């Protein structure tokens, strides 16, 4: 594999994405909402007042996740900590997923939509190099965006909760595992989804809508956590990430098999 070719294709795709307003604003809007807007909103709810003990209802199951140091906090504070540190944390995976899917849609479908694909097929790049360049173009910014957003989210959460909790407690080890271990796996999922979707659709917007459905998976994950069905403790997260990487390998290989010059050209 010629890495110069792969890198050139990925870089070129990212240059193009930068000029796609819909893509950029979706990514920025999503990032702002999830890592700044949402924690601010929840942190500013008047949880600090309220009784010091009581039943947390459906959130009771999540209580086990709180480090022992935080178990003694008043109910309202525990609620904020729980929401920001645990319940909403999986939502954060929407960022790598969506960035990968948006960039992937742009790079796989956009090139078809703008009729530049044929020129690319006439280059010496092998099918695998073309594919790798495009997977990289989706995955790298998704992982970077995920890490950046996670850092911002952590700062915002600590700013809001440190006064209530009395210490800087976030990120917890499982939140860190979520970002560092599960995040990239989800990014790859977004990329491979957009590759598969690109074989079915003709425009960037269609592709974007279809891959958007994937975020439902994440919402399901969150609901699972909220109802106590799926506790995202460290071992669960590590295992979950491993399964995702397995799925990624399968999907990426499937995409590579589909991504052949002859197929792309015969359809073009």
């Amino acid at each position, binding site marked *: 594999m010629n890495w*110069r070719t792969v890198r050139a294709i990925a*870089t070129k795709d990212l240059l193009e994405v930068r000029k796609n307003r819909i893509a950029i604003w979706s990514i920025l809007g999503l990032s702002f909402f999830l890592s700044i807007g949402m924690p601010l909103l929840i942190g500013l709810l008047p949880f600090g007042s309220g009784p010091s003990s009581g039943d947390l209802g459906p959130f009771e199951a999540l209580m086990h996740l709180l480090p022992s140091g935080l178990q003694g906090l008043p109910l309202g504070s525990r609620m904020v900590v729980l929401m920001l540190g645990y319940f909403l944390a999986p939502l954060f995976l929407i960022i790598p997923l969506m960035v990968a899917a948006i960039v992937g849609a742009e790079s796989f479908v956009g090139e078809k939509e*703008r*009729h530049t694909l044929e020129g690319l097929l006439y*280059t*010496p*790049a092998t099918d695998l190099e073309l594919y790798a360049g495009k997977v990289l173009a989706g995955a790298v910014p998704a992982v970077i965006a995920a890490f950046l957003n996670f850092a911002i989210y952590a700062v915002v959460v600590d700013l809001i909760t440190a006064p209530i909790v009395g210490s800087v407690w976030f990120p917890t080890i499982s939140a860190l595992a979520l970002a560092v271990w599960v995040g990239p796996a989800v990014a790859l999922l977004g990329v491979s989804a957009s590759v598969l979707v690109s074989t079915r659709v003709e425009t960037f917007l269609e592709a974007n809508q279809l891959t958007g459905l994937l975020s439902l998976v994440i919402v399901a994950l969150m609901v699972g956590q909220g109802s106590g069905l799926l506790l995202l403790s460290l071992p669960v997260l590590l295992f979950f990430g491993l399964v995702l990487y397995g799925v990624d390998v399968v999907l990426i290989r499937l995409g590579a098999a589909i991504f052949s010059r002859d197929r792309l050209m015969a359809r073009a």
Partner: protein
Amino acid sequence: MTMAIAADGLIRSFGTVRAVDGVSFEVGEGEVFGLLGPNGAGKTTLIRLLAGVLTPDAGSARVLGLDPTIDGSAVRSRCGVLTETPAVYERLTARQNLSFAADVFGVPVPDVGARVGDLLARFSLQDRADEPVAGFSKGMKQRLALARALIHDPELLFLDEPTAGLDPVASRQVHDLVGTLRDEGRTVVLCTHHLVEAEALCDRVGVLAKGKLIALGTVRELSDRLLAASPVVLSFLGPVADAVAAAVGAVPGVAVTEREERRLLLAAADDGAAADAIGAAVRAGGRVVSAGRREHTLEEVYFALQEVPA
């Protein structure tokens, strides 16, 4: 002569359509070869097969000594292609477009800057090199696409209808470029349905119709094979008198095929008969200002070919 291209029985279908149907031909190194044919004849598909972008259903090809189905990457690294609808990256600048191509075509890293600069200058794009291509005119985009096709100094060029939709000045520039490419010793395959263009530029042409190569040769060979001897045209100073026309028509081996106000078109059996006809016209009082054979145009050859059952 070494062959740049040797195609042998290439076949490629899409669904039930046989886009290329058993095409065999050769193109010598340094030759400018024209691929002629109406829309849908299979010209573009043939280029795709030769560049290893499509795989043939049957048949084989050698391009620059390599099999494109096996060594497609190597073949493409030595070929430049101007596609039929040349799409450059509109959101990128001209320079970014060329640098990207240079990277993907493996231009040595230290040479990229100079090579890109040279091509921008050669195609008169240097003044707007750092502007997004979206704002360029069609002609400028075409020049950029041509520059891109040349970025890696290819031995073989495929130009797919390079002047379609261009104004006469831009077309002339493309024609001049083909001449330059020939002088530089490159092999050029030129797809066109522009007959005058093919006639002016190509050493040999192949005519495709419904995926089949129905004729192959120089324009002269094709016209000799397909059409009767070219007409002799006699032009007169004034209107052609009946007596003159009659005298010419009476020469053995000569028939007047068309009579215009000041011209006679003759079918002459041979050059001797043509010379006799000119003499007869003068003796009958005709004031001949010019006389000569008119060569068949490729256009006439082309239409004659469409009438030959495939």
